[in-house]
């Protein structure tokens, strides 16, 4: 049983006059439920060209109602105006401009539980990771 720990810190010295901001949170990535830690993961890099919508993590083999953790970072350095749009469950959540990242616990609650990334101004380079409660590789074509 592997142990992976995620920590976020969010800080600012000038957001509020006379008071600095320092948020810190940490958690061990756990499978569905709270007693067993994550063992399965998938990590990689990809280029997302403009107007191309990629399915970063597909539905299907994922266990319905399973716990996942998703990390996506736009590692593009060429132009700060480049960005991708990301979707959870076919719902647009936000944009990742060059340098931006997101990390969320994700619920693969049905067969349409894809994670998609679309290049809108680019090309963009992204790195990503998904930690999974359960996973089966796609079956070979016969």
């Amino acid at each position, binding site marked *: 049983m592997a142990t992976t720990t995620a920590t*976020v810190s*969010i800080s600012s*010295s000038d957001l509020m006059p006379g008071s600095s901001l320092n*948020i810190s949170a940490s*958690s061990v990535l756990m499978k569905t439920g709270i007693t067993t830690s994550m063992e399965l993961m998938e990590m990689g890099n990809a280029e997302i060209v403009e107007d191309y919508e990629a399915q970063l993590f597909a539905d299907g083999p994922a266990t319905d109602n399973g716990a996942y953790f998703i990390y996506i970072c736009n590692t593009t350095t060429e132009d700060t105006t480049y960005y991708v749009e990301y979707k959870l*469950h076919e*719902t*647009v959540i936000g944009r990742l401009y060059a340098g931006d990242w997101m990390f969320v616990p994700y*619920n693969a609650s049905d067969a349409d539980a894809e994670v998609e990334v679309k290049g809108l101004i680019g090309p963009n380079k992204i790195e990503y990771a998904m930690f999974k409660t359960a996973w089966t590789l796609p079956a070979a074509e016969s």
Partner: protein
Amino acid sequence: MATLTPTLTLVSTDASTDEINFSVTDSLNITKAIISPSKVALSTGDLTLFAAASYTKSYVYLKNTDDTIVMDIDFGTQLSIELGAGEFAFFPWESSGNILAKSASGTPYIEYAIFEA
């Protein structure tokens, strides 16, 4: 204009034969509204944590402060983020739909913050 610096670190010595140990940080310009870390009790009914009409592009921080109860976060109709006990999320939000939150049971507290770019 203020600068917000979010940093994520992922560490594991045994997730694979190659240790995971990486950190990513960003420097974000915050020019509009902020809600600094606050807490609210959830129930099993949807609570509108952030109304889309009130924000433009923003960065959202959420944390489940409870030890056992799971929280569901969705952006309209689909359950998307599930915060287990003690888990957190940080993500850019385009405010295309409300952010709704509810608990699986009881009245656990969610910690939240939003920073509008």
